[in-house]
């Protein structure tokens, strides 16, 4: 039996911040013994109100957050990302097989879109070539193909900070393609985009999953987007998974339990596939 693409086993994450008023520090448990796994390339939507732990879960999977010490463990593509509050020494190699797309695009504004996308090779090349940006002609072609695929090849020579949010987000997806990512983690990728652009970005993620068999885990604020573009939904509330099942099974009663009085806001933005 092949190893799961992603396996999250009983992970918790507590944030501690200094607070004068509380006379010391305040702790907040963002994740509380969360477990789930993805065995085949699915499109999983993480939903839940603000502060429910969606982004923390995603960042824990990529090892950008270290989880609390204990029995918790994150495994991706058969390799351990972190366990017992410690990152694996192989985390760089595992990250090179995961694409990360963020709400604020995570592109370097003063670099061209081409260079930003070519940074997807960093996990695979080393030495001076990776530091000087000496991409081979084959790598350059791969970058242009990826940019062409997401529809922004014409902007390849433009600085990232001169592009619109949608163009930057498509650039981030192109970077994941260049990486040859087997898993894509997208943290609220459409939160800063208008509905038309948001739908285009979501369709690209669907395309990555269906065409290239890439597993996609995406945090979304809008329930409609989650139901339309994802086949499995994980709903979080107060750091715990309160629903894990097919998109079709997410009833209004369950949503009311998750969002409470904010249920109307959760439906903001009606996507049309």
């Amino acid at each position, binding site marked *: 039996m092949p190893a799961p693409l992603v396996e999250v086993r009983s992970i918790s994450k507590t944030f501690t911040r200094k607070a004068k008023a509380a006379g010391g520090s305040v702790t907040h448990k963002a994740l509380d013994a969360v477990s789930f796994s993805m065995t085949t390339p699915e499109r999983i939507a993480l939903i839940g109100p603000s502060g429910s732990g969606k982004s923390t879960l995603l960042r824990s999977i990529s090892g950008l957050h270290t989880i609390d010490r204990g029995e918790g463990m994150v495994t991706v593509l058969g390799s351990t990302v972190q366990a017992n509050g410690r990152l694996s020494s192989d985390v760089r190699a595992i990250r090179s097989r995961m694409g990360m797309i963020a709400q604020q695009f995570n592109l370097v504004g003063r670099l061209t879109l081409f260079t930003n996308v070519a940074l997807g090779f960093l996990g695979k090349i080393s030495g001076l070539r*990776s530091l000087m940006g000496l991409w081979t002609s084959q790598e350059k072609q791969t970058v242009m193909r990826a940019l062409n695929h997401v529809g922004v090849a014409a902007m390849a020579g433009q600085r990232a900070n001169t592009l619109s949010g949608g163009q930057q987000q498509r650039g981030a997806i192109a970077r994941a393609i260049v990486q040859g990512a087997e898993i894509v983690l997208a943290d609220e990728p459409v939160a800063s985009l208008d509905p038309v652009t948001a739908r285009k970005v979501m369709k690209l993620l669907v395309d990555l999953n269906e065409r290239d068999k890439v597993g996609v885990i995406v945090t979304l604020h809008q329930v409609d987007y989650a139901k339309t573009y994802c086949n499995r939904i994980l709903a979080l509330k107060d750091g715990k998974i309160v629903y894990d099942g097919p998109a079709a099974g997410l009833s209004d009663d369950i949503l009311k339990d998750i969002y409470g009085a904010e249920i109307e806001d959760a439906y903001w933005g009606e996507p049309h596939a």
Partner: protein
Amino acid sequence: MASGSDERGMLAPPTAPLTTRLANLLVLLVVVSLFVISFRGAGIPGVHLLVTKAANTGSYLKDFLHPDFGDWQLYIQKMWQTIEIAIWATGLSIVVAIPLSFLSSRNIAPAWIVQPVRGLTALMRAFPDIVLGTAFIVAVGLGPLAGVLALTVSNGGTLAKLFSEAVENIETAPVEGVRATGGSKLHEIVWGVVPQVAALWTSFALYRFESNARSATVLGLIGAGGIGQLLFDNLNGFAYSQVSAIALIIVVAVTLIDILSQQIRKRLV
């Protein structure tokens, strides 16, 4: 009455708490006291000498109004040497400042490295250029090299601090973006940090170059080469017409450097 009830319901405009107002008053008192205390120490009572010894100033200015450009080729050559000192001092101080800036940035290096490196850069900035120049004249002898080394040390410290402040104010998202691709710590710095600070760093370096061109002139006074040394020699010989010509060349050169540097900096940031 609608307006009356509105006004009754309105909150009173905010006022600063008494402690804040007292603190502001205290700051004002401290500043005024500092000026009063340092009045004699700074020699301010002697300001009347400007009027009583106006004849000396007049004689000085008379020669000054007739600059002698007889040795203009020498003046230009020495001015160029001063600029060369500034170019090398700026270049070397950038080389010194870049690693020190990363090592003194809290978002890059651990605290046990940051604190000692910050101490070192503070020490580099602590000594006036003249003191460092004198020390390097003892080490390498009279001439421009002493000036280059003195300015490298003091500017290395200053640029390290300015560069490090720029590094500490970067956006973290692009750096995380590089990390998420599987990039190493060095990749994060080269691709995530440097592109964000490069323009500001260049602006700071150009500003320091302007400053170095002026400082290199002053260092010439203690024998560290360049036009400053020529200026000092002519001042000692009471050759005010030559001093006037040299001063004009310095003013023109430094102004041109300032304008050029400002234009480049405007385009960068």
